Structures are given as structure tokens and as C-alpha cells.
């Protein structure tokens, strides 16, 4: 059988952090192709902030942990360059200062109910476009997202529309959570193809 590879396939990075009161925070980074298929997966060992960190960072602790420490460590390990990084936690937007890619925040609570994201459309201003219930850029953070967008809004939208043809844009976060759980259950450390301390 003859194989055809879609040309110029952009890749998408999904990043989320799972907080477990007992074990700490585990970050997961999943690189997908435009069909939503996994290309790479990276996850961190649980990270537990020390008492000194908790005191010194105060309310900025999560943003620092997610956006400055866990997130960059994960993205640094990826071999495949992505066109866009999608996150589901506002704290991960700190990644904007540490990566060169556009970072888009997905409101998971408003997404996924229909199992389809094909109706994605442009989001402008501070409102949510009608007909696009699956994807929401947090309105109050739109300016920040624009600031970090090196490609420009139109390019981000084009990429998201492309991915939304195949999958629900929020669905991969669930995959990451399950994979982190699986890795913890099986005891994934040491089994990865590339394990290094960041």
C-alpha cells in the first residue's frame, strides 16, 4: 500500500501540571501531530515545593513552579519543535517568558462537552465568539496571549482550526493526566527513552 505523508505538518504541544497533595506536582508535556496523534510524551517526577519556597514565593508559587520550572524543563526535553503550546492552567502562561512559542490557554471547563471542536472560530476582544463553545481563550488574559504570540492571531487561529478538525482541543489534557497516572502506577522512572535531571 502506498503511504502519503501530509506535507508541512505542524506539531502541537500540550502541557499541564497535575497536583497531588500527597506526592507533589507532576508536569506532563504531549506533542501531537495535526491529527492529534502522539509524537512525544514527557513527564516530570513529582515536585514538592520546600517550606522556604512556599514562604518566599507566596501566592506566586504555582506560577513560578508551573511556568518557570516544570514547564520549561518539559519543553526543553522535546525533540520535536512545536508551532504552539496549549495549556489549561493560567499559571502556565508564565511559559511565555521562557519559550519562543505562542502559548494559548484553553478553558477546559467549557470544552469537550460535545466531543468535537470542528466549530472553532475566531475569538476577538474580551467576548467569546458564538459558535465556538469548545474553545475559550480566557478573556481577561487575551492581551497577554496576544503579547506572547509571535505568529500573530491569525496564524494561531489557523493552527487551532487545523487541529480542531481532528480532535477536541481540550481532550489531550485528559490523555496527559491518564498518562501521568499510568507512569506513576507502573513506576515510569527509568523506563523512558531519555531520562535526565533538568
Amino acid at each position: 500500500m502506498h503511504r502519503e505523508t501530509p506535507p508541512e505538518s505542524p506539531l502541537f504541544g500540550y502541557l499541564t501540571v497535575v497536583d497531588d497533595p500527597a506526592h507533589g506536582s507532576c508536569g506532563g508535556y504531549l506533542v501531537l501531530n495535526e491529527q492529534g496523534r502522539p509524537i512525544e510524551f514527557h513527564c516530570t517526577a513529582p515536585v514538592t515545593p520546600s517550606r522556604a519556597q512556599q514562604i518566599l514565593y507566596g501566592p506566586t508559587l504555582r506560577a513560578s513552579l508551573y511556568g518557570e520550572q516544570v514547564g520549561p524543563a518539559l519543553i526543553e526535553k522535546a525533540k520535536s519543535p512545536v508551532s504552539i503550546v496549549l495549556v489549561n492552567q493560567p499559571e502556565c502562561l508564565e511559559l511565555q517568558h521562557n519559550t519562543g512559542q505562542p502559548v494559548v490557554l484553553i478553558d477546559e471547563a467549557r470544552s469537550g462537552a460535545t466531543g468535537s471542536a470542528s466549530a472553532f472560530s475566531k475569538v476577538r476582544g474580551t467576548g467569546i465568539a458564538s459558535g465556538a463553545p469548545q474553545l475559550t481563550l480566557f478573556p481577561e488574559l487575551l492581551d497577554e496571549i496576544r503579547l506572547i504570540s509571535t505568529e500573530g492571531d491569525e496564524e494561531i487561529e489557523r493552527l487551532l482550526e487545523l487541529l480542531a478538525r481532528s480532535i477536541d482541543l481540550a481532550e489531550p489534557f485528559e490523555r496527559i493526566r491518564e498518562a501521568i497516572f499510568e507512569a506513576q502506577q507502573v513506576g515510569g522512572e527509568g523506563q523512558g527513552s531519555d531520562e535526565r535531571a533538568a
Partner: protein
Amino acid sequence: MNAPLELLSAAPGVSLAAAELRMSPEVAEPSTRLADVISFAEIPALRFPPPVATMPAPVARVRVTSWAFSIADCGTQWVSGIADCRSNSSSNPKSQIPNPKSPPTRIRPPRDVVKLEDRLRQLLQPPLESLIAAQELRFPFDPFPYQLDGVAFLYPRYHAVLADEMGLGKTMQAITAVRLLVHSEQVHRVLLVCPKPLVTNWQRELASWAPELSVTAIAGQQERRNWQWRTSNSSVTIANYETMVRDAAIIRELQLEFDLVILDEAQRIKNRAGVTSEAIRSVARHRSWALTGTPIENSVEDLVGIFEFIAPGTLQSGMKPRVMARAVRDLVLRRTKEKVLKDLPPKLVYDEHLDLTPEQWESYERAKNDGVVHLSELRTELTIQHVFELVLRLKQICNFDPVTGASSKLERLTADLEECAASGRKAIVFSQWVQTIERLAEELAPFGPLQFHGRIPANRRDEVLRQFRDDPTNQVLLLSYGAGSVGLNLQFASYVFLFDRWWNPAVEDQAINRAHRIGAAGPVTVTRFLAEGTIEQRIDEILAEKRALFDDVLGNTVGPASLHLSRQEILSLFDLHSPAGPLRAAA
């Protein structure tokens, strides 16, 4: 304001409280700078530069574990060789995703996938709906969510038994899973083995659910079959069980190897020592799936037999049911209609207790008394076969009086069918005997009865079914349990009559589910005829007890030790005594 505070806080022994003591209320106004009112020289501890402790902001140590998945591993190739389905598809493949309000169907790795990398590869795949949409696979109608769960169960498994109750669409689930595997190039050659009467049914279903897959049905004389085995490069090869036995040598000689072997009605290989089981198990394969609505037809040993094909060594003879259930938990998926098909029209089951006609009673009593006397005379010569023959004789009399032809069942059936025909609905009637069916065909001539049993040639059976479905003058289909209880889709029939009863409730269920299945437009009424005060009633009582036991254990996957009548149970149908006490059958 900041500087003094930092100094104070960095100098051990000096507190803000100390500074505040130096401030008078009138100078401690918000607009007043602290440095203006506090003279550091007046504080003894600060006459000299204080020691400074520097603590950098701590950074968490983050360890990252990585996995990379090749595109080939994920089955993401675009396969142009089977692209017909895509070219015919609509521009919006998502329209094929069933029930958009349902949660996505995730593919989860089976337990026998041990390596974490392999487990993650499967776990990180998109939901099944996305896979289907990505390949733009079209379906003749939307699958039910539970059917997608079944596909998600089969898709990642190398060893699997899909044991859904009859009528839930095992065929469609298997075909869709095969389709996904073929499209993702994980599977290239599939061998499907099914009972002979179901070959055309599978061809039809494949054409409907996977029109892009090439299919070859192995049939004909030996030379033709040999040629087919040698040359077939179809995605799916279909063979019946008898063919597999006859062609075992050529399959071995050609060293044929299949990516996947699927057994439909897999209970056919329950006898591990049988030639069928041996022939099937000898086929080289990578994946082994079994489809059966009755994984335990007679005893738990049936399941052991099936697993000798699925995953040899998983089950052993004599295992306790609980241990067995644990061993196969991850490899068997069984759903019942009650659990998954909330919207299926109801099945109304009536036991029609009938009195025999006087003529039948006379014949029945005579046969019974003569038979019991004969059995008693046999004493130690008595075998189970002797008892069995008497049971069959009595059951036949319950159908028709051998002398006069009188039949209370026929009278009742005729009345019911008149009502059925008046409403324009169709009925199917099951019997154990072909003679009974032929007799019924004569008596029920006004209803245009059609026959489907072992004496109807295989090449005419499809035509019989088509005629029954399409011709309004053919209102009744008469079937034997043997030929008509599996694999037929008769959901357009609203009434099912069991003219006589089979020995095994699972077979009766299969017969009933020919009509009560997906696609049934309305309620299905099942009438089980039972001759009051006869051997039929006694058998029914025993089977009812067994059915209850089966239902109790089915939740644990494994059924009771035996579903059909045991030797002792058959003997208990009669009160057989000799002067020495109760009679027991010889071995």
C-alpha cells in the same frame, strides 16, 4: 520605606517593635518616612553595618522522563490503497461521530501490555471517535456508544473474547475494529472463521460496514479452495469451521500466517480434543479474537476450550470459577441488553401452559407407562440413552398425537398467528424437529410459511430469508433450533414462538434474539408453549433453576458448572425404582 524595613528584618535581634517604640504618635503619620524619624545611631545594635544573610530564591529540581513515538507505531499512515471510503465521504467527517453528547471513547491498554512505553503509546492515542473521523470511516448507521466501547476493547488487544449477549452487534464491533487496524496498517491479513450458514451473512455485513475491505470466502471443491488459499491476498478471508478442518493440511503446507484470526460462534471449538479445535489452533496468527454470545454453553470447560485458542495456558481444567473469572477479567467483555440497550423495545415473554388434547393425553400416558416399565426392566442395563429416547418420545407427543395428529399447541399457535397476521406483523416459530416443522408447514399453509432448517440447501437459505423479509404473503418462518438460532437477523419479526423447548436456555435465548435485537421496531413477544403436567413442565422447572444460577454467576464472567441437563437430572425426570431402590444409569 522599604530600605529600613529590609534592614530591620535582616538584622537579628532588631525588630519592628523596637523601631516602633521610638516613634511618637504625632510623627507616625502615614506620609512620614520612617527613616526621617528613626535615628539609626541611637540603636546600639546598628552602630556598625549589620551582618547580611543572602538566600537565593530556591529552585525546584525537576526530573523529566521522556518517550518518543514514531508515526508508524501510532498507525497514522495515510493508506491510499483502501481510500475508497474517504473519497466517498462527506467534507465533515465529524458527522459520523455517534451521539455527540457521549463522552469520548478512550482506548486503554490491556493488562498484558506490560512495558510502560507500549502502554503510554496506546493510552495517549486520541479517542476512538477521533480515530474514526481522522480516517473518515463511514458507517451505514450510527453505532451505539457501547459498541464503540466494544471496538475500543478489541482494537488494542491481541487476545480477546467479545461475549456480548446476542443481538448487541458483535459482528459490527469486530468489523469496525478490523477496519481501524487495517487502515492503521497494524493488520494486513485477517482470517474469519464462522459456521457455514453465516458466511453469506458476514459477507453482507462486511460489505455494509467496511465496503473498502477486500473479502474472499473460501468455498467450493478442494482444488478451488487450494487455489484460493494460495492466491488470496484479500484483507479478510472467510472460511467455515468444516473447511478449516478439511484444509488444515494445505494451510500448514503453505505456512499461512494471519495477523488476526477471528472465530465467530467460538463455542464451536469448546471441545479441546476435537478436530475443529485442533485445526483452528494450528493456524499461525498474531492476534486471536473470539466472538460468542454463549462462552459457557454447557459448562465452564467450554471457556477453557475457547481460551486454548485465545491465550493457551490462561485457563486450566478444574479451575475454580472465581479464579477463572479473575484470570480472564481483562480478556473478556460481556454486556447484556438490559445493561446497555435502555432504548431497545421490550421483550415480552409468556409461558403458554396448555392442556394436551384427550387424544394426546391418551398417547402420552400409554407411552410414559410403557416406557417407565421398560426402563425399570432394564435394571443395571439402563443407560442414559434409554431415558433420553423416552423423553424425546414424550416431547413429540406433546407436539402432535402420533395417531390422530391432534395438537393443542397447533390450535393455540394457529389462533395466535391469525391475530399476528391481522396486524400485518411477522412471526418466527422454532422447533427441535424438522418433522414437526414440516408438519406445521402443512397445517399453517394460509400464513404462507417458509422453512429454514438443516434440510434446506445452504444456497437457498438466503433466498428464504429475503422472501420472508420482503414478501407480505409469507407471514411465518419455521426454523429449527440447530439451523436458525445463531447469526440470523430477523428483527423485522415481532413474534417468536417456541413450539417446543430446547435443552439449553442459552440456545433458546439465541433463538429469541433473532428477532429481539438492534433494529427491532417494536416490542417482541415471545411465547413458549408448555404442555401442562408433562415432561415439558418438569424440564422447564429444571432449566429455570439453571437459568437463575447462570444469571447469578454471569456478573463474574464465568457461568455455572453446567447449563444443560446432567445425567442425574435426566434420570430424575422419571420416578424410576427397582426393588433394590432408585435406579441409576450405567456409565
